[in-house]
């Protein structure tokens, strides 16, 4: 049997407002709530709500035979709670069907595995508890920010009790091996790695509406034919993608919703195929071999590495500064949970992604997703906020001693 494993990523960052050097020491209002709310509501309307409805119909129609998984970042959950509770409810309705698995990740979609492993564990544990509380089951599969995996990240996840970790089936990682088999990361004893089948995933996520693509238009039947043609020994096909693929990156009028409505039926026509969730695949499959992941591999850009977030001096400086701030924050953390919450929002990887210059001039996806006019503007704004934050911590850590008590 070969399983199709759909996993959809849902994430929204807390974008910063225009915060200038002159705001330092004058304002602790860092986040652009109006813009964040506007974007969340728009994406909910165009993607989350209509696509959740599609998936719910599929689950009901196929009576358990259609299954899929989500990972929803903690910051996205925060925003849904604040601005679109109906979206959160529709995810909970999917969870209640028993056919939809919710994975774990860091609560703040952060790169904390690099910045501070203690912080990483705290964010993962916080997210695990929240997923259990909202969706009724403690997650058993883990997905790190931007699908970044290394032997070390896998080990951290294993130590926290996860049975599976999701990773990019990058060519430079797997070489001649198939992404459709289950592997065990080097240095790990129990955790299994499930790889993204990037060609088939990107046929849907990136190429679906591309009229210059030789396979356009992509129909459910055509896609099913490709899947049905896979070798019998393939255990699963990891179709991992941003949930915004549906309705936001590929607009509704491209037919992407109809494609998904018809896909399960087309796939299930061949009895060799079924749908499973990541944890189901991991539970029933022994790894075929070890996979050595010495350097972090992500699902971003052609490089599939960390350069989209930490590729230039500004990104590395800002990332270091944010985690330095975290250490300074430790001394006042107990008294000021609100500051800790604000700081964690700064750890979100998007803030560093906006500072990426490597493709900036080409006007590609980095630019599309950025609220800033340029990567430099992203850096300046973030550093201004970090500076203000540092002053506030310093003011708390060394309270002014009243004159009388001297």
């Amino acid at each position, binding site marked *: 049997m070969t399983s199709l494993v759909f996993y959809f990523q849902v994430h929204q960052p807390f974008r910063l407002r225009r915060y200038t*050097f*002159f705001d330092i020491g004058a304002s602790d209002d860092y986040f652009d709530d109006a813009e964040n709310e506007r974007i969340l509501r728009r994406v909910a309307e165009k993607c989350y709500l209509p696509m959740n409805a599609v998936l719910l119909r599929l689950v009901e129609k196929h009576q358990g035979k259609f299954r899929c998984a989500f990972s929803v970042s903690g910051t996205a959950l925060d925003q849904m709670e604040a601005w679109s509770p109906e979206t959160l409810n529709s995810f909970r309705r999917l969870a209640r069907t028993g056919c939809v698995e919710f994975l774990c990740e860091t609560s703040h979609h952060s790169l904390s595995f690099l910045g501070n492993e203690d912080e990483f564990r705290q964010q993962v544990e916080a997210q695990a508890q929240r997923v259990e509380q909202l969706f009724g089951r403690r997650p058993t599969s883990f997905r790190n920010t931007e699908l970044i995996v290394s032997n070390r990240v896998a080990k951290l996840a294993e130590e926290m009790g996860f049975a599976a970790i999701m990773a990019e089936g990058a060519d430079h990682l797997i070489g001649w091996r198939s992404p459709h088999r289950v592997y065990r990361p080097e240095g790990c004893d129990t955790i299994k790695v499930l790889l993204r089948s990037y060609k088939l995933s990107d046929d849907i996520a990136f190429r679906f509406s591309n009229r210059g693509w030789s396979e356009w238009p992509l129909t459910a039947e055509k896609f099913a034919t490709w899947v049905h043609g896979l070798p019998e020994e393939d255990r699963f096909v990891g179709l991992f993608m941003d949930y915004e693929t549906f309705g936001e990156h590929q607009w509704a009028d491209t037919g992407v919703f109809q494609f998904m409505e018809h896909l399960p039926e087309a796939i299930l026509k061949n009895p060799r195929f079924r749908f499973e969730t990541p944890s189901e695949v991991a539970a029933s499959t022994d790894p075929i071999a070890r996979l050595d992941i010495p350097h972090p591999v992500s699902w971003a850009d052609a490089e599939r590495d960390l350069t989209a977030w930490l590729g230039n001096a500004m990104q590395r400086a800002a990332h270091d500064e944010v985690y330095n701030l975290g250490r300074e924050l430790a001394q006042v953390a107990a008294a000021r949970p609100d500051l800790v919450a604000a700081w964690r929002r700064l750890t979100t990887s998007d803030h560093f992604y906006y500072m990426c210059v490597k493709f900036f001039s080409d006007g590609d996806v980095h630019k599309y997703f950025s609220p800033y*006019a*340029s990567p430099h503007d992203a850096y300046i704004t973030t550093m201004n906020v970090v500076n203000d934050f540092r002053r506030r911590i310093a003011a708390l850590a060394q309270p002014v001693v009243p004159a009388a008590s001297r």
Partner: protein
Amino acid sequence: MKVLMLGWEFPPHISGGLGTACHGLTVGLAHAGVEVLFVVPRAYGDESAAHMRLLGANQVRFLRRVFVPAADAGPGGDTFGGGVVAGEGSIAATLRGELAEDLERLEAGSAEVRYLALERLMAGAATESSFTGVRGASSPYDDPGQPRDLPADVRDRLAQWFTSGGSTVLQLGERALQKVPTDAAGWRVLSRAIRDAVLAHSRAPAPSPGPKSGRFEVIEERLDMAGGYGGDLYAEVARYALAVGEIAANEQFDVIHAHDWITFPAAAVAAEISGKKVVAHVHASEYDRSGDHPNLSVKAIEQLGLDIASRVVCVSHYTASILKRRYRVDPAKLRVVHNAVTQEEQRAQWHGERNITDPIVLFLGRVTFQKGPDYFLEAAARVIKLRPDVLFVVSGSGDMLPAMVERSARLGLVRNVVFTGFLRGKSVERMYSMADLYVMPSVSEPFGITPLEAMALDVPVIVSRQSGVSEILTHALKVDFWDVEELANKILAVLEYPALRASLVESGRDEVRRMRWELRGELVRDVYQEILK
């Protein structure tokens, strides 16, 4: 392929970015296999023009033949009529009606009367009926109602008249140009007048011996060209056009390429004479120089050039949008070719001591409305509230300089703002290399080459979004010129955040090195090929 290129400046005799850009472009064109004949108003002999031919309008020779009677003629003798060609008698006698009268006036009248008569003659050529049985050759820009070419025989006779020493092309041309047209159509008529004068002159037959004994002497004359932008600029523009006409009549080339309004009348003349197509190159429009109150005489000339051009090359999309909006240029004619940086500029270095340790933020350029020095000072006032140690340097001169000095005092910036006046040569490089940050807050900048010079010297830059150069820069900070708050924010960020500075400097250096004139030369050659097809 050979281009007749018309420009007002060429290094080292430059007053702004125009000359630098022209030099770079010719280097690029030479690389792309295009032969360039470049005409400047005045050649000094020290131009760095080994890759092409450079001619000054002041070097063009105008020949005048004077009939000198054998014995009795002395200085001051009337040369008019003296050179009438033997066997033909009066030219006027061979012509009919009004034309004959006009030619009589031409021969007899004062200079003014002669010119008016000539003007009438040319206007008369618009209607074939004035010249029964003689058809004018059609010009490439023929419109109904516009004067046409003079019929060949009339032109020949005019030529004879010129030859006879009645007047010279120079005198005629200069006289014609004393009345500066105020619209594009007027400039068109004028360019045809110059064309006919030049052609008639150049086609004049060799004089034969006259009825009286005597001889012809050839006198060489040259135009007195001042160069630069001072004095009676319109007269200089007209004299330049006359010289270019003479060059166009004597040189072979495939296309005419004219840089900015100041050479557009010359381009019109060269096109009239050679029948070749024109590429107009806009480095700055009158709206960039003067905001919403353009000089209408200049605008008329710009309109002439843009109208007759087969292609309009502009230095940025920003400029292209102005040409579309203000001059109604057909978008199909527009091509954007950004400026670049020569290898010498890329290699520029300054190894000097820096004797000031306080951070320096630099404005370098003309202190005029267009360059936005006032926004620089407003941002400075905001920055020093937080960083009183920062020094703001204003390098350059211009009509706003006194007002800026006054304003800096009013803003309480006396200690923080330094005015250096106009810098040239090595002082410019030294100034750049002393700066921690270069700011170009231009209100309207068609391109703006100075940020590239600063970047080549490892100085980070902030440029206004209202500049052409911002279109091609990734590793520069950008602001809207009016947003002084944001400008101050970014100045502070560069001074405070080393990683930002390092990123701008390192990536900026690479970015400037990739801007090569060779690539631009290929683009312009492609534009030529487009219109020659």
